[in-house]
């Protein structure tokens, strides 16, 4: 972590923590903002956050490993999170996931060699009316079929 990033994050951590009666309560929002900046929460970030919030590093790791959105390893530029829950399965999420794997040449949990796409499977995204869905980073795309998937991927730089 560069000194600039570290200083910037410290400021934002201070601001965030100030909204809570106890500093430690800001852990989830703080992990989100650190991850936005550094891409993932590795040991370095765990120690950084622990120190900034006055927590034991173990307590930070307990939280990082509990919540699926906190990544311990970096992902590609676009994290494709395909819903595998019931409504999406009913409307063809299974075959679409296979299509994505073949198209990108990666399995679930893997990243393309050019570092652009990581493919993950997630549970219900809360967009069942648009099933089948994928969340790309934080953007929702629904009513997917092969053509739409092709268009979405082409549209990503």
């Amino acid at each position, binding site marked *: 972590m560069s000194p600039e990033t570290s200083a910037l994050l410290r400021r934002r951590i201070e601001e965030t923590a100030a909204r809570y009666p106890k500093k430690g309560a800001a852990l989830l929002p703080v992990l989100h903002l650190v991850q936005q900046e550094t891409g993932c929460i590795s*040991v370095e970030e*765990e120690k950084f956050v622990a120190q900034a919030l006055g927590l*034991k*590093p*173990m*307590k930070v*790791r*307990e939280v990082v*490993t*509990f919540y699926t959105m906190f990544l311990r390893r970096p992902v590609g530029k676009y994290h494709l999170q395909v819903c595998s829950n019931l409504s999406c399965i009913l409307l063809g999420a299974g075959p679409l996931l296979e299509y994505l794997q073949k198209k990108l040449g990666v399995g679930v949990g893997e990243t393309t060699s050019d570092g652009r796409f990581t493919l993950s499977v997630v549970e219900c995204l809360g967009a069942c009316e648009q099933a089948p869905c994928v969340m790309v980073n934080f953007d929702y795309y629904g009513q997917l079929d092969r053509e739409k998937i092709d268009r979405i991927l082409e549209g990503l730089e």
Partner: protein
Amino acid sequence: MPKIFIDDRAVEAAQGQTVLRAAESAGIPIPHFCYHPAFAPEGSCRMCLIEIEGIPKLELACSTVVREGLKVQTKSPKVVEARKGVLEFLLAEHPLDCPICDKAGECKLQDYFEEYGLFRSQFKESKEKREKKFKLGRNLILDRERCILCTRCVRFLNEITKTEDAGILNRGIHSEVGIFESEFIASNYSGNLAQICPVGAITDSDFRFRTRVWFLESRESVCPLCSRGCNIIIDSHPGFPRLPRGRRVYRIRARWNPDVNSHWICDHGRYGYAYLDEGRQDRLVWKKGSRDTGLSWDKAAGILSGKIQGLMLRGKSQRIGVILNPNLTNEELFLADRLFRKGLGIEKIYGAGPAPEKGDDFLLTADRAANSRGLREICPAVRAPEPKDLAELDLLLLFGHHLGAAERSADLLKALEKVEVKALFVSHRSALDDFVDFVIPVPAIAEKSGSLTNIDGRAQPFSAGLAFEGDGLPEWKALLDLAKELNVDHRYFWPLDSPAAVFRVLQEEIPFFK
């Protein structure tokens, strides 16, 4: 005092008590894993589910507070089925390690399966494979396949040591106990984790693979390695006496005492038991010139009292000295005081013990002697000897191998050379052996009975947890024999035939102990 009914039996419970505690007090055990009396109820193992009349769902005994008229069933069909269910879940993902697991024989999972389970496994799937030898701490190994996630270890480090070293990682079936990187648990209380783990997940590498617990004999004792006086259990193997060459003691465990050490002991006391079996002084010898002559105590007592009497008759009681030590029991200190100071009028009575070391803010005290408080209360005038004190002596009785301040040891030894007759009552071999005339073996605290006064002034009685092997005898007996030989105050000393008898007189004469 709410009256409740457990299995149709009326039980007087205490206000605010949980059903589990009330049942335990009434002699009705309710099986549990995650519950531990030192922590707030956790409620996660679900083993203590019981049936309460009027409530359709089963409730937890560990966290349900009693109220007047509560009717509890601990053996109803619903409860039996629930217990079997929990056991079945735990055993489904539990390795069949009993043949190689140290916890066998004292494992709650085994015990409960035997009592409440006894079903055939219906688990056909692959068990989760996990790390089986994860180093958790200096002496601690974690087997994650055996772990039932009761979180006692995590809670101990959060609530007792407050070091927060361990935590639960991941989620769901992938949950596991872990530490941060290589920040191994380094607390002086780490050994308690192996003791409170209900199964063989956390094992003590000090005890690992050494024996089966059913071969061990468990005896109560008090730890003498500092002035806290934690209550302990000594686990020794009766098949391996110390002599001619064996190690009897396999393990020290904490024993509950709400007033002294709660449920815990420190690692210093837990792992520092080698001294009980190693370096012991076993032969009673009289060193004449370059030869060591074996001697019986009767003979030795006779010779010593002769020499003492000789000096007394020649009006030379001020040429007789005694060095006591703060590891002697209350009874022994009392007898020494009454025999030497009161009975014989000897004034040169000193006390020397181990040098203080670092204590912690929990149980371990800086004072590393077991009975400093007793020494202070029973022999108030006693101080450490200076070299000049020793130089004036013709006869010295030394109890323990401490001469005085460690910094002065060279000078003290030099002064010792000038003393004509020196008798050393000691449990372990030391360099001092070569400087004395008589070496009389005495038992370690674990091998005798009596009482010790801890740092808070609490007098704790204890009885022998191990057999005393070798020549020699406990100091209290030696002092009584000397009193007999020296013909001191029959009526006073003769009825004192045991440490308990001595303590009764001690209590009458010294107000502090009433």
